[in-house]
């Protein structure tokens, strides 16, 4: 019995319960049907307006991928250098600590002033949101290197380049990937918010527009997509981590 229980994906049960409660609440008619769509109505958004949903989803997705990638290629090299060179750390640490406290969302008005409405402000904001967790996790990953490993490199008279690429980067990789998960998470949250103000496409825009044209079913459909895509992102990064960090001792699918 216990073994059988372990095999059943019980994690899905609360979701089914929520779905049932939602259906019941809709049928009970506590709220007017115009304001409170039933699960079936939301489902029909998916079947009837597939192309629309797909277009907005792809718009958001593209922005996040571009913004987070930009953050990755800027934050990781900088983090490697800050983690490696004490002087650079002393120079930049204060600034990093201040900047990472700014919520990207608070910068939306400024981004619109600078770049107008369109792709530019949205991508800049995602870059900003994703940059700090990546930078900080890279620095942490570099600094956690065992001293003995650096001694090995020193005795072998390894070049700075070899130390950075063959020792510090792989040493930081598990931490960088954790940072990437955080970055993708905040990037995804930021894109939805940014699209409500700074762009005229994407899931954030779609949801806000649906509110204006009185389509709660579209709002809920949008929210469901946001959740599912966010989850898929995270799973993808976990798969990548399990592949890249095979060498890690005791790595058995950590959460």
């Amino acid at each position, binding site marked *: 019995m216990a073994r059988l229980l372990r095999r059943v994906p019980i994690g899905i049960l609360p979701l089914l319960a929520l779905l049932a409660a939602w259906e019941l609440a809709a049928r009970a008619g506590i709220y007017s049907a115009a304001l409170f769509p039933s699960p079936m109505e939301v489902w029909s958004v998916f079947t009837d307006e597939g192309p629309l949903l797909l277009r907005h989803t792809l718009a958001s997705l593209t922005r996040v991928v571009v913004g987070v990638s930009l953050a990755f290629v800027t934050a990781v090299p900088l983090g490697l250098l800050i983690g490696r060179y004490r002087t650079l750390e002393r120079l930049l640490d204060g600034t990093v600590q201040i900047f990472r406290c700014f919520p990207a969302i608070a910068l939306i008005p400024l981004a619109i002033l600078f770049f107008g409405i369109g792709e530019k402000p949205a991508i800049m904001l995602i870059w900003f949101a994703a940059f700090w967790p990546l930078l900080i996790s890279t620095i942490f990953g570099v600094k956690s290197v065992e001293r*003995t490993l650096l001694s090995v490199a020193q005795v*072998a008279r390894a070049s700075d380049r070899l130390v950075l690429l063959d020792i510090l980067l792989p040493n930081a990789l598990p931490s960088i990937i954790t940072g990437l998960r955080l970055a993708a998470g905040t990037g995804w949250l930021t894109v939805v918010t940014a699209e409500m103000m700074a762009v005229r496409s994407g899931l954030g825009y779609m949801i806000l527009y649906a509110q204006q044209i009185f389509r709660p079913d579209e709002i809920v459909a949008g929210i469901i997509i946001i959740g599912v895509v966010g989850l898929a992102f995270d799973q993808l990064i976990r798969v990548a981590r399990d592949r890249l960090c095979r*060498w890690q001792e005791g790595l058995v699918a950590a959460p």
Partner: protein
Amino acid sequence: MSLIDVRHLSKTYARRAETVTALRDVTLKAEPGEFLCLLGVSGCGKSTLLKILAGLEPHSEGTVLVDGRHLQGPHADAAVVFQEHGLFPWMTTRRNVEFNLKARGTGARERRRVAEAMIETVGLSGFSEKYPHELSGGMRQRVGIARALTTNPKLLLMDEPFGALDAQTRSAMQGELLRLWQARRTTVLFVTHSVSEAIVLADRVVVMTPRPGRIRTIIPVDLPRPRDTTAPAFNALVRRALAELHDDLAEAAQ
């Protein structure tokens, strides 16, 4: 010419307000091909001496010559086998063994050839593509030794390499090390706090006193290898080394 020629070496370093003397007036020579063990209790500065010879730490006073040259940082003549975690966990056995050659700019094909040959020499054929966490403690130390030998160092510095191994593996690794040393006649400086390990391995055992580290005495071991650890002559040497160490302990306690 001696391979190691250390004269009146002292090592002090500042710790907060006080100055700590780690080594005082150490004079020591090692001939090419000689196997020396540095024996002492923990904190006697034996690892510090090893780091100085590796060029990892500067000394404060005296002269240190390796192969006739004054030390200025890490040098091509020495290789080090570290205590425990000297292996890169993200590199396979082969890539770990290749590392010192890669640091010298040796080409990929030559690196691979030398590494594979060395992996076979230390008895790890078939484990080339394993990661360190997939190997046993003894195997990991074999990888560390293989890596150190790839550059044909004149001086092999070993910092308590077998300290974390169980008794049986340790004894097997000692035999293995002697086999490798006899085939190559590299000069070995081996740091240990185990009296019997020092006497199993060394041509001469350098007994050190703690705080500040000085050389108390040097015990030559004229027993044929492989050494019988139960023979009376072996035990006589163990007793002598223990007596030298215990005197120290008694002094240190006062």
